[in-house]
């Protein structure tokens, strides 16, 4: 238990991806079964423990200590799980003679009935160290929130066994905690687990961006083009009555899209884009799609207002026949025929874009027929469906990004290699009537510049600081003083969380405009005009 607690403590404060991977692989390497598998399940969200409500936790602690002292403590710390882990009084004369393993903790929590759950929890807390108490409370209150995605945990497993992460993703849904056979395979002690489970995820085929000189070497006749839809890449798999909708990293997202999942009554594995709207009438915008994202449960009203559908790109399997080795042209024919048999309000075909030469396609790319299109895809007619990102068969050719000139407002210190540099920048644009313009923050970016530019901005931040808040500095930014940053971004959403009312997608610094006076930076109206309605 203590090693799991220590892992959580480290992960939550480690910002770099590589740092997290090292911590995870070290943990998986040094901890034995079944503890490591349960830890893995806790991180990927596959561990089932009946939840304890925060109010119950609070009640348990004030039975054991002065409520006023608890109140002072909670006010100071601000986080209930952390406060309870710190103030929990060990019973008088109680010296735990054994540190429970993660398996014992999970076992006792899973065996507890609803009525004696709190008592079991209290006994576990009595026996645990402060860090372990925090970990236990996180397990029972649901959601570790340690900044580690299921995908990253799978990457750590891949690193551990020196295998491709696609192999882990393909196996994943056929496995269950504590994943003993998975670890045995990764450590070379056993064969790769064979799963008899149905409707497994198939690793997705990805594309490379078109580089400057790529196209002149390619023959347009070798490639099909289709629109690149900016929704969520999904895989719909139905096998023997089991239906699953996967994200492109193999997470099961069926629960978030019950309306779409309900109409998946076929025997196939399809690759496509999840979008909202009715494909026979109109495709929704990205803002519409956002209504369906990051929701644990979806109300019937939302489902009706923003129905989810799938725009199909490819067929990986139909009626039990694996099609992945066939050329794209052949798979496409099968797909066209198959989509006709599906519910037309929930499934349609991603249309091909006819073009004779690259110049024609370039014109089409720059003026797509729908705001949710972010460019075109090029797929070699003869390409099989391959896992990962092979170089050559598939290309994405994105619409050029939007750019805006904004003024640097706040800078935050980075981590690791950048730990003494102010490397995360919040920038704003002008708003308000002429003569009393004010900057409103519209986004934050932390890449896009060279190391040399980073040093220059860092110096600028240090020389122009007006206030400090922990690792953040606010810099001089008014009509006469300020650093103008050209910011590139992919799109703009409405946002109720930001004062400006807009949120940028994928913003990055494209150029430093040392030459441009702050007063000439863009106004908020320029951004508002880009919002899709």
């Amino acid at each position: 238990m203590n090693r799991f607690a220590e892992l959580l403590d480290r992960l939550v404060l480690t910002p770099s991806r590589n740092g997290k991977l090292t911590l995870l692989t070290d943990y998986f390497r040094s901890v034995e079964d079944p503890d490591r598998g349960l830890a893995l399940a806790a991180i990927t969200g596959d561990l089932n423990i009946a939840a304890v409500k925060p109010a119950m936790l609070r009640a348990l602690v004030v039975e054991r200590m002065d409520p006023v002292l608890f109140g002072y403590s909670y006010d100071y710390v601000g986080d209930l799980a952390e406060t309870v882990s710190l103030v929990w009084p060990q019973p008088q004369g109680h010296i735990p003679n054994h540190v429970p393993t993660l398996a014992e903790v999970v076992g006792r929590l899973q065996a507890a009935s609803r009525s004696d759950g709190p008592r079991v929890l209290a006994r576990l807390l009595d026996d645990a160290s402060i860090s372990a108490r925090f970990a236990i409370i996180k397990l029972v209150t649901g959601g570790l929130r340690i900044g580690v995605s299921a995908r990253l945990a799978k990457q750590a497993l891949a690193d551990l066994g020196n295998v491709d992460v696609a192999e882990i993703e393909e196996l994943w849904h056929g496995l269950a905690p504590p994943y003993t056979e998975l670890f045995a395979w990764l450590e070379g002690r056993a064969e790769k687990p064979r799963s008899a489970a149905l409707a497994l995820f198939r690793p997705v085929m990805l594309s490379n961006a078109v580089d400057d000189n790529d196209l002149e070497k390619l023959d347009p006749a070798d490639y099909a083009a289709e629109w690149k839809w900016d929704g969520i890449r999904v895989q719909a798999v139905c096998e023997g009555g089991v239906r699953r909708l996967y994200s492109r990293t193999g997470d099961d997202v069926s629960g978030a899209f019950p309306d779409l999942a309900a109409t998946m009554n076929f025997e196939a594995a399809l690759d496509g884009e999840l979008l909202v709207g009715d494909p026979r009438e109109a495709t929704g915008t990205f803002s519409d799609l956002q209504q369906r994202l990051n929701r644990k449960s979806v109300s019937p009203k939302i489902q009706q207002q923003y129905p989810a559908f799938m725009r199909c790109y490819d067929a990986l399997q139909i009626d039990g026949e694996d099609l992945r080795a066939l050329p794209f042209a052949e798979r496409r024919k099968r797909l066209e025929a198959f989509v006709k048999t599906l519910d037309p309000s929930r499934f349609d075909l991603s249309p091909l874009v006819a073009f004779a030469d690259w110049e024609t396609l370039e014109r089409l790319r720059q003026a797509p027929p729908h705001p949710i299109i972010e460019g075109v895809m090029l797929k070699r007619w003869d390409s099989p469906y391959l896992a990962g990102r092979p170089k050559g068969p598939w290309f994405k050719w994105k619409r050029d990004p939007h750019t805006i000139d904004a003024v640097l407002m706040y800078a935050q210190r980075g981590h690791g290699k950048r730990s003494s540099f102010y490397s995360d920048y919040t920038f704003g644009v002008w708003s308000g009537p002429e003569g009393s313009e004010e900057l409103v923050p519209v986004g934050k970016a932390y890449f896009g510049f060279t190391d040399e530019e980073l040093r220059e901005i860092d110096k600028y931040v240090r020389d122009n600081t007006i206030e400090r808040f922990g690792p953040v500095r606010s810099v001089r930014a008014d009509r006469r003083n300020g650093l103008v940053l050209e910011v590139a971004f992919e799109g703009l959403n409405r946002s109720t969380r930001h004062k400006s009312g807009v949120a940028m997608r994928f913003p990055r610094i494209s150029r430093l405009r040392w030459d441009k006076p702050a007063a000439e930076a863009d106004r908020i109206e320029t951004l508002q005009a880009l919002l899709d309605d």
Partner: protein
Amino acid sequence: MAFQRNAITIQNESAVSCNRLPAANLATMFKAMRASDLLKPRPEGLYCPPGDFFIDPVRPVGRALITHGHSDHARSGHSSVLATQETLDIMGLRYGEDFAGTTQAAALGETLDINGVAVTFHPAGHVLGSAQICVEHGGMRIVASGDYKRQEDATCLPFEPIPCDVFITEATFGLPVFRHPPDHEEIARVLKSAAQFPERSHLIGAYALGKAQRVMRLLRDAGYDRPIYIHGALANLSEYYQGQGIDLGGLEPATVESGSKADFAGAIVVGPPSAFADRWARRFPDPISCFASGWMRIRQRAKQGGVELPLIISDHADWDELIITIKETGAEEIWVTHGREEALVRWCELEGITARPLHLVGYEDEGD
């Protein structure tokens, strides 16, 4: 010695008495002196009217008694200073030899008479040279703790509980959330991380006086025998500690001259926390920032400061140490100062001990 015997009597009295409050009232009735006449807060600091001296004054005064060398307690410019020899030495290192008009060294456990007030310094276990100051007059004994801790620390003498009528306690970590783990466990975490990330350097932020040397000593005790790289701000004080017989092993300046960036791979570097935000830190390869402080108990605090590896190592008493110390002094009355007074006052109330916050200004121990 008479001191000690007398003290034990007081402690025994309070130990047998089940109902403390009436006993306390009775005791106070026989005192010729009220506690608040012996020591009282003034803007300059804690003042003793009969002795005409201040304890840890924050502004220049005539006579100052100083508990320890941290800059919020030990300031320059007093006409005369009474402190332990180590504290005087440290003040000399920090402010220059002429930091006060005259100085006098107080030997631990030896009672001095200042205008009829008996004054004795006792070890406080905070940093090298740190002392509690016991002030006694007219049958009333008050102990001002200064800053103190109860955890063992190889770089200074351990705290001694001194029985007294009034105990003035610090409360930097006066909340039940502050529970410092054993310091060797924290050091083990740095060493583990250094093994996990051999290509990176570990930068440990530590207060220049006391904490930095304690961290180095803990590294040595844990068997770390490579050179420890230090920031220039620590050089004088660390050398002084070494001169006092506290072995810190091989220390090397963390300067660019001493090596290229790659030479700091796997290195442990100790410096004042402020330096890590500075350009100074750029000479190290992909550093992991560590901070040795009691504040690191709170995750959000670590997160806000950009600390990746918090080390909960403190030179102040944690909650459990505060309450055990209050009990051990047997004091009838507790004055609580610099820190989170309200929680400790509340705890005293629940225990039936008279307590009040002493609103002294000017002490900020954010450095811990």
